[in-house]
């Protein structure tokens, strides 16, 4: 393993669907324990970028490094890589035929080949982390959206990932359920989990992020600390976007 200060690095990533350039020449360095929030208008390739980082979607060009090792190289076992990069989806995507506990356990027993009893202990511990130990035996359909998303976070955490990717984790939730999910994510940030979060929750970005990246039309326009970005944005486009979004969301995101 190469000695690298970065857990995750992306170099000159480009993704093209047919004629559409989704994003172009994106480079990104993620330090251990860092929480990065990616903001920007919808349709600017933020979600696709996350899926590419997790190798769920192939990039057209560029390289991705995990702990200094290139995972976009030939012959790399994608399934191995994905175990180390957790992902949380906008629409939760819990396995509908498994209970909350089953959802968290299945990666441990079937992918990591952990003995059932041990997997169960670990899964219960992860559910406890997201505050849902008492819902372990509920099926997804018996849980609220916020609870489902917290189970999805526990499912990803159980694999002991080096990085967690969050793809708009609260945008499918009713307003009153957003807080519980953001709360879990905030707690993870305090535990120094490395996180990459695509979200429109500006309050969360301001309070929790170490760094904010503003993306538009497939490019990184500007990045910096929350103060830099929110108080002194350098680019007109950033100011415009932040203006629009605070108009839209008002003071709601101030928790």
């Amino acid at each position, binding site marked *: 393993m190469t000695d690298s200060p970065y857990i995750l690095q992306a170099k000159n990533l480009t993704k093209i669907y047919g004629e559409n350039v989704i994003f172009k020449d994106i480079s990104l360095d993620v330090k251990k324990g860092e929480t990065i929030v990616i903001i920007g208008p919808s349709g600017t390739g933020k979600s696709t970028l996350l899926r590419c980082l*997790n190798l*769920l979607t192939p990039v057209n060009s560029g390289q991705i490094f995990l702990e200094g090792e290139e995972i976009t190289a030939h012959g790399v076992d994608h*399934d*191995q*890589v*994905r*175990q180390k990069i*957790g*992902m949380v*989806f906008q*629409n939760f*995507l*819990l*396995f*509908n*035929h498994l209970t909350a506990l089953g959802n968290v356990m*299945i*990666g441990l027993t*079937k*992918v990591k080949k952990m003995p059932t009893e041990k997997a169960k202990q670990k899964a219960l511990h992860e559910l406890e982390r997201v505050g849902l130990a008492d819902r372990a035996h509920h*099926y*997804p*359909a*018996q849980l609220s959206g916020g609870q489902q998303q917290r189970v*999805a976070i526990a*499912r*990803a955490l159980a*694999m002991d990932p080096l990085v967690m990717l969050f793809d708009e984790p609260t945008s499918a939730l009713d307003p009153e359920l957003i807080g519980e999910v953001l709360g879990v994510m905030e707690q993870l940030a305090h535990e120094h989990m490395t996180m990459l979060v695509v979200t429109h929750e500006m309050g969360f970005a301001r309070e929790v992020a170490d760094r904010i990246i503003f993306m538009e039309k497939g490019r990184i326009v500007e990045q910096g600390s929350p103060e830099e970005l929110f108080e002194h944005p350098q680019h007109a486009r950033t100011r415009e976007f932040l203006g629009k979004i605070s108009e839209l969301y008002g003071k709601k995101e101030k928790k």
Partner: protein
Amino acid sequence: MISFFEFFVRFLPDLLSGMGMTLLLTAEGVLAGFILGLAATLARTYGGKFWRNLAIAYIELFRGTPLLVQVFLLYYGLPGLGITLSREWSAFLALGLNSGAYQAEYLRGSILAIGEGQMLAARAIGMSKWKAVFYIILPQALRLAIPAWANEPVSLLKATSVVFLIAVPELMTRAKLIASRTYDPISSYLAVAVLYLVLVYLVDAAMKWLEQRTRLPGLSAVNESS
């Protein structure tokens, strides 16, 4: 002229001796068809180009031709290629292959209904494609397919009747023998029709029970955007 009721009672034991074969063919056909249908669906949905086309060809051919023609092709036709099968084997193979093509369609429908998201989430925690298929997709797809699939045993039970045309000793063959012995074909076939009705009713009830047993909370025609 004796009444139909007397006729029915008198020949019931005779008819019942064919019932075992009818039920055996139904059970074998459903089981073989399930295995074939599952394999065909997996090949069609997750296989490479060759396997996909092979599965489509199989499904379309067996759904696009009459079962009776398939039975004849196996029993009378194959000896022309030097392969000779017994009546029972021909019947069993034709029913299994035929049912498999239909069962493949039920399964495919439910796999499509589950949506791509489940596969995506499974891949995201590091599962390989086939692990995801067996641990995530199939457990849901099989449950989802049950209501539509539950018609298959009943329709196969009825379908087994055509193999009397190659003289497999099942219910219809017995009825035909009784008809030629009594010169009363209408009563004979009415009697066998009554027996089929009872069997269809029982199988149908069993399937409804199975449907109840396998129900999971929230898992019915799940739809989700991916």
